[in-house]
């Protein structure tokens, strides 16, 4: 009788010990998985690169811009379209279409900004006037210094 009783005690003791070890091993296993996956997950996310801080970019000389012409320049990391209207006025707008990120172009016939991807149209001030673009293009300022065309971040951006 006595030995039977101690068997039961031993078994339940063993079971609690087994359970305890199972929990420790299980938790250890998941911690190990986490320790493997965490750095891999972090590695996959590209690091934030500080935006190249640019306040102004030289787009060229005035002679490069005959009336009704355009040029896309790199402003920091982003493309900016600089164009000269028929009447000689200079404008600069973000060249990235607000719809799906395509690069826009200057339509000389109508003096509008056009995105070929999905037929989005903007006016010379960058206002979205037809097609799918949801927002206007950001404006930049053009400063003419001597014969240089300089594009700067305008207050309007």
């Amino acid at each position, binding site marked *: 009788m006595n030995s039977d009783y101690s068997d039961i005690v031993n078994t339940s003791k063993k079971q609690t010990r087994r359970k305890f070890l199972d929990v420790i091993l299980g938790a250890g296993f998941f911690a190990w998985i986490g320790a493997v996956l965490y750095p891999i997950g972090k590695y*996959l*996310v*590209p690091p934030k*690169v500080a935006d190249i801080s640019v306040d102004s970019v030289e787009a060229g000389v005035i002679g490069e811009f005959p009336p009704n012409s355009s040029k*896309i*320049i*790199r402003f920091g*990391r*982003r*493309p900016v*379209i600089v164009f000269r209207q028929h009447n000689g006025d200079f404008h600069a707008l973000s*060249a990235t*279409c607000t719809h*799906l*990120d*395509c*690069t*826009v*172009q200057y339509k000389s016939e109508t003096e509008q900004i056009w*995105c*070929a*991807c*999905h037929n989005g149209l903007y006016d010379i001030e960058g206002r979205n006037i037809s097609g*799918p673009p*949801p927002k206007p293009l950001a404006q930049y300022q053009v400063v003419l210094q001597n014969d240089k065309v300089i594009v700067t971040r305008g207050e309007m951006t």
Partner: protein
Amino acid sequence: MGIYESLNERLYLDKIVEFSKKKKVPVFYGTIWYYLGGVSLFLFITQVVSGILLLLYYQPGVATAFESVRFIVSKVEFGWLIREIHSWSANLFIFFVFIHMFTVFFAKAYRKPRELTWFSGMLLLFLAMGFGFSGYLLPWNELAFFATKVGSDIAGSIPGIGDFLLRLLRGGDEVSGATLSRFFGIHVAIIPAVFTVLLGIHLVLVQVQGMSIPPELEKVPEKDRRYMPFFPNFALRDVLTWLIILNVVALLAVFFPWELGVKADFLAPAPPGVKPEWYFMFMYQTLRLLPAHVWFIEGELLGILTFMVGGLIWFFVPLLDKKAKVGERSKFWNWFGIILIIYMIAMTIWGYLV
């Protein structure tokens, strides 16, 4: 002792021979659909072989990707052939995988006990589309550059995880050399590894469970059903089909080459005619048709959410179709499939017309 005998002692070849002798294919009006899985498998193998060959010359990187593909198609002997076969076989692969999926759907082959085969097949389809999306960018031409910009921008508009997903896909904020490196790694290492494992599971399941037959045929008593042995009868027909497909791929490669186009330029405006691959067209066209705002939600977002929910429903159809579980056809799911096919075809055609 012969070579076969000594190998058999170690590898139990007799069992494999025994198994393939017993394997049989049902013969009925739908037998032709049984070739589609095999055709897809063959095209995948073609992709692996031609892809490895391209890898010997291709150099990822903004300064070299386009140039190395141009080198392959213009200087390397038969380089044009390998690249054209890779492009055509990729397109046919997706095409046959889609037909394979729809025939499986209408034959109700996803019902118990084959739910896992359907799930693994659906995952393979998603990966195949990932293969297409990542491979499209690798020649670094203008159309692919802008298609990738647009495609990843769409992924970026998913609420909550959009921004994270966009940066994860592009390897930064913009489509750049980092994106190209990333897509290259995804295309030649990550997806192939996962794909191969899933394909192995998919094929083992098909072997273990045997060929499925439609519910109507199940009602025919076993003695009245017709079969053909898998080996050699069906296997030889398989090989013949593969031979025909390879010839079709070669003909398409020679007579309808895919243009390399113009090198991608960060400072060039997007050219007209930026399109995704045809198998993304039905989704793309839908997004294009949606107005900027539907009720209170952004149109594009509504479209993406609808496709995500639709994809999930399609994925879990083995669990949702209650009638198929008891061996009956459900009118609802039949119509669901038919309308989906009509929708996909109509949107694809419309997308190419505008």
